């Protein structure tokens, strides 16, 4: 029972972290109709910038400044890169962001090298908040949950209750009309792109010390983020939240409970073959859940795309 609680908290941390990335990504998608492959790269940039800043003026300034720089970089990419490619159509846009992801990874390796950076949890938060049946929960995890939830609430408030949020929402669905009403729609798009990438930057700043700050960190998380928003339904903020938490919990539980495939197969009445080494399905029999934990989201996504192409909360086929 206690273990379930610990896993719930761990899954929540992973899920909320995913959500910070997928929220920005899904906003950008509903705006431009294109998946930003470089989104996780901005997350990586956030971690690296924060690390460099934290060396000079401390973790908290890093948390404040790094997302701003990342957001500015994102806005610049939209203004000078994507807007230019937009005229060629969706496929070149997708390819552009893909190439950008490659280039950012190379540039990061160029500047900071290939090794993991010693970016660590600040001293203030480096203690055990409480423990559940001998499993200590670090205060930093609670801090991560706190930051992500406050960002989600803030985002929801801005999008649904303020005038700016209304204009953004209107611009997402009817850009022409909003433009005709006298709003600068390209500026709104640039702003949304900047804010979306800044969110990814925040995620990078707070995840860097826990998950490691290394050049492959974008790649590790990148495709999972797409999976998240595809499962949640492209363009849906709530869908992104639900899918993020779902994926966070599924992978955490699959990793901590060692469920073997042979038990499942025995359970449904298939006997374990006598001679395992000659059996062509021997690998299937020896699969355990921690082994496949990382590919479970992909299986889920393929199944969702087959049976419910719009995703869990998606409104219609795009």
């Amino acid at each position, binding site marked *: 029972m206690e273990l379930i609680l610990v896993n719930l908290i761990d899954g929540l941390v992973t899920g909320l972290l995913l959500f910070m990335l997928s929220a920005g990504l899904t906003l950008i998608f509903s705006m431009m109709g294109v998946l930003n492959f470089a989104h996780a790269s901005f997350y990586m940039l956030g971690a690296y910038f924060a690390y460099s800043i934290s060396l000079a003026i401390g973790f908290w300034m890093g948390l404040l400044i790094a997302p701003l720089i990342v957001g500015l970089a994102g806005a610049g990419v939209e203004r000078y890169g994507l807007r230019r490619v937009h005229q060629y159509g969706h*496929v070149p846009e997708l390819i*552009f962001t893909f190439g950008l992801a490659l280039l950012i990874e190379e540039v990061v390796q160029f500047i900071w090298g290939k090794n993991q950076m010693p970016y660590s949890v600040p001293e203030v938060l480096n203690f055990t908040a409480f423990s559940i049946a001998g499993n200590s929960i670090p205060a930093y995890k609670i801090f991560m949950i706190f930051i992500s939830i406050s960002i989600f609430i803030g985002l929801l408030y801005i999008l649904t209750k303020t005038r700016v949020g209304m204009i953004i929402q209107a611009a997402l669905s009817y850009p022409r009309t909003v433009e005709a009403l006298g709003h600068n729609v390209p500026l709104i798009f640039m702003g949304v792109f900047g804010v979306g990438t800044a969110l990814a930057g925040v995620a990078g700043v707070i995840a860097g010390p826990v998950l490691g700050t290394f050049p492959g960190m974008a790649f590790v998380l990148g495709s999972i983020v797409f999976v998240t928003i595809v499962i949640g339904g492209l363009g849906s903020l709530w869908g992104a939240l639900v899918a993020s938490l779902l994926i966070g919990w599924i992978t955490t539980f699959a990793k901590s409970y060692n469920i073997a495939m042979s038990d499942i197969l025995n359970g449904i009445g298939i006997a374990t073959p006598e001679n395992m080494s000659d059996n062509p399905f021997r690998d299937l029999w020896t*699969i355990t859940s921690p082994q496949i934990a990382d*590919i479970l989201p*992909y299986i889920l996504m393929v199944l969702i795309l087959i049976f419910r192409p719009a995703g869990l909360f998606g409104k219609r086929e795009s």
Partner: protein
Amino acid sequence: MTDEMTKDPKQQITTDPSKPSERMRAGSMTITLGPWIIAGIALMLMPFIFTSNSALTIMNQMWITVIFALAYNMLLGQGGMLSFGHAVYMGLGGFFCMHIMNYVEDYGVAFPLPLLPLFGGLFGMGFAMLIGSFSTSGAGTRFAMISLGVGELIAACSVIIVAFFGGEEGISGDRTYGLPFFGVEFLKQIEVYYLISFWLMLSAALMYLFSRTPVGRMANAVRDNPERAQFLGYSARWVRFYSFCASGFFCGIAGGLFAISYEILTEENLNAASSGVILLVTFLGGVGFFFGPIIGAIAFTLLQTVLSLQTELWSIYAGALFLATVMFFPGGLAGLLMMHVPAFKLGKMSGLVVPYFKTLIPAAIGVLGICALIEMTFHFRHGATGDNEMTLFWTTFDSHSVLPWIIAIAVAAIGIGIAKMTAPEMKEAWDEANTAGGTS
């Protein structure tokens, strides 16, 4: 379509048979044998020009990439489907071929090696049929996401399912146990080269012919306007499915050739990085033309082998080049070449030569200057302490002294500056060369 739009790079993807320069793409031109014969002779003669073993290896690699890129372009260029997991089909074909090769070795079955890629192709096609049955119902984002998901799944499976993929170290085999083919046992690299060249010519011709068939033509229609194609009575889904299967088949052939050439296949052959590379190669070459991926594969393989010998930063240059291609020349290298067809037809190419020299050579020098700055920064930051000497462009200097930096900055600034100054002149010459009628 107006004359202006043909010049516009964004129109690279569509075709217009009324324009002479685009007739080749639109398929109304009869199949000319000329380029094929020249390509065939060139393939035959290449080993006599580049005799070293490493050159043969590079060429083998190149031709395999050409087949793979052409197969990839059947989807991306001709079908408008962006796949992020296409290495899977090549990899699976290769793994299957490797298993056949090992089976032949273990049981002494009489099996001629040259037929092996065919089985790789069939396996690739079989897998493509399986995946295509649900992934081709939409193009665009949905297809891309499914291909990404399937790609990640298979790449992850390659570590879990050891029986087929051999785990982390992959599986290896020996190609020489097959039935001798007219006395050839494929012991030597050169014999493998001719085997690959044969399959290259065969599959390139078949892929070209496929693009001329009604299915191939419909693939273009579905790419440009699926709704309209459906109103004409064609199922967009089935058309995509056929393209997808055909692409899987040729990817499998490339995989089989890879198995023969390298005799080892690992997880690396089907992971996302390989899928990314083939997208890069194809787009660099140009997706709008049949021969685009061929140029792309040759250019990329050369870039990879030559640049990676010179600098460890080659992937940063490749990335920048790729991004520049997407932003400024979405038609790729082939599109860049074909842009000159109208000027060539008007007989005004000669007017372009001088402005090109005036702009492009300073630009190239400027870019080299920037590259020098990048290399020096890299050396400055990551070089071992005390090791201040670096060699660049055949000169050795101290990367911690000021003078080389000044020179590099000056070269970059002057090069780019001159290029910027002469750019309007080039633009003018370009417009002039593309205008029919009298010269001014």
